[in-house]
């Protein structure tokens, strides 16, 4: 039987796993799995950079494969959220709850190994990959992990929006993130 795999967003201390496979998940200046809520929007700075709270995602196997699920990949459509919005991304071997302030700049704590110690620091110098949209179907982000049983599995994929003064106010056009996996 083919496995059933879903994508969860992890939030809270637990963490709490919220399925996001079929819908939208919204970054904000809070650690909430918003879908379309407009609370806690990310303020555009007059100068410098403001950060969203980072978004942690992970795969879950809800129906086991006959064999093994492996070769996990994550990628984007190569587009982006537009002027003034940078999206960083990295894989992480453990969960660290997003933190920061919902009321004071720079809002979210910056995604780096100081604040999230188990990211792979693919960008070098303790930093995540600088541009999530550099990962496309032709050059995806490899995610460590496999499973043969029902469970959450694999490394987390964590991303964060960085906003500078050139961004425009309003709801960003949603971007599609893709997970790919193989099974036997």
């Amino acid at each position, binding site marked *: 039987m083919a496995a059933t795999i879903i994508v969860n967003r992890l939030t809270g201390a637990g963490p709490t796993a919220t399925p996001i496979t079929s819908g939208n998940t919204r970054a904000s200046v809070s650690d909430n799995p918003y879908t379309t809520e407009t609370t806690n929007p990310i303020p555009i700075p007059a100068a410098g950079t403001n950060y969203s709270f980072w978004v942690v995602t992970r795969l879950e196997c809800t129906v086991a494969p006959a064999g093994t699920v492996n070769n996990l990949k994550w990628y984007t459509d190569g587009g982006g959220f537009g002027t003034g919005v940078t999206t960083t991304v990295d894989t992480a071997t453990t969960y660290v709850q997003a933190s920061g302030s919902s009321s004071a700049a720079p809002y979210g704590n910056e995604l780096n190994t100081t604040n999230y110690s188990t990211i792979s620091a693919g960008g070098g110098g303790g930093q995540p990959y600088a541009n999530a949209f550099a990962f496309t179907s032709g050059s995806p982000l490899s995610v460590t992990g496999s499973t043969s049983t029902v469970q959450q599995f694999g490394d987390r994929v964590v991303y964060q929006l960085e906003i500078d003064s050139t961004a425009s106010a309003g709801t960003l056009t949603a971007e*599609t993130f893709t997970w790919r996996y193989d099974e036997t």
Partner: protein
Amino acid sequence: MNSAAVFWEAVYDDGTLYREADGGKYGNIDRNRLRSFRLVTPGENIVELFCSNGATGWNLVYRRRTVMKLGVGRQVWFIVGFVPQGPIYAVQPESLQIVQSDHFESSGPLAHVSPIVDEGEHWDNQHMIYRSDAVLLPNSITLPSGYRLKVGQG
């Protein structure tokens, strides 16, 4: 054609079948006895590969590849072929699309797979030997303990 209705079948040298639809597991295929491997859907064969041109059951690779676009939907490809000899096929049932190559590609439906313990031959994706007059190798190869480099005959 619904991907949920696509299954694999291993045909052994005595004509018997080992079938996924009967609960068979890919890792339990008797690769010593494999004559052919096929993808089927009720009433028809989609693609069948016969062990030939030096390929044996130990060269067989099969994957069910799922692409999940969050908020959009899923697409399933079935990958089947022989490594490193080729051919390798990627079949997308819903669109009836079939992609074929002599080897795995760097991207697309035939993007590399990760070998699993179930597979008989441990082959290194990074040093895939292509069917060519020139064998492409890096200046040096360091193989993990217990692995050997095998060159296919074209």
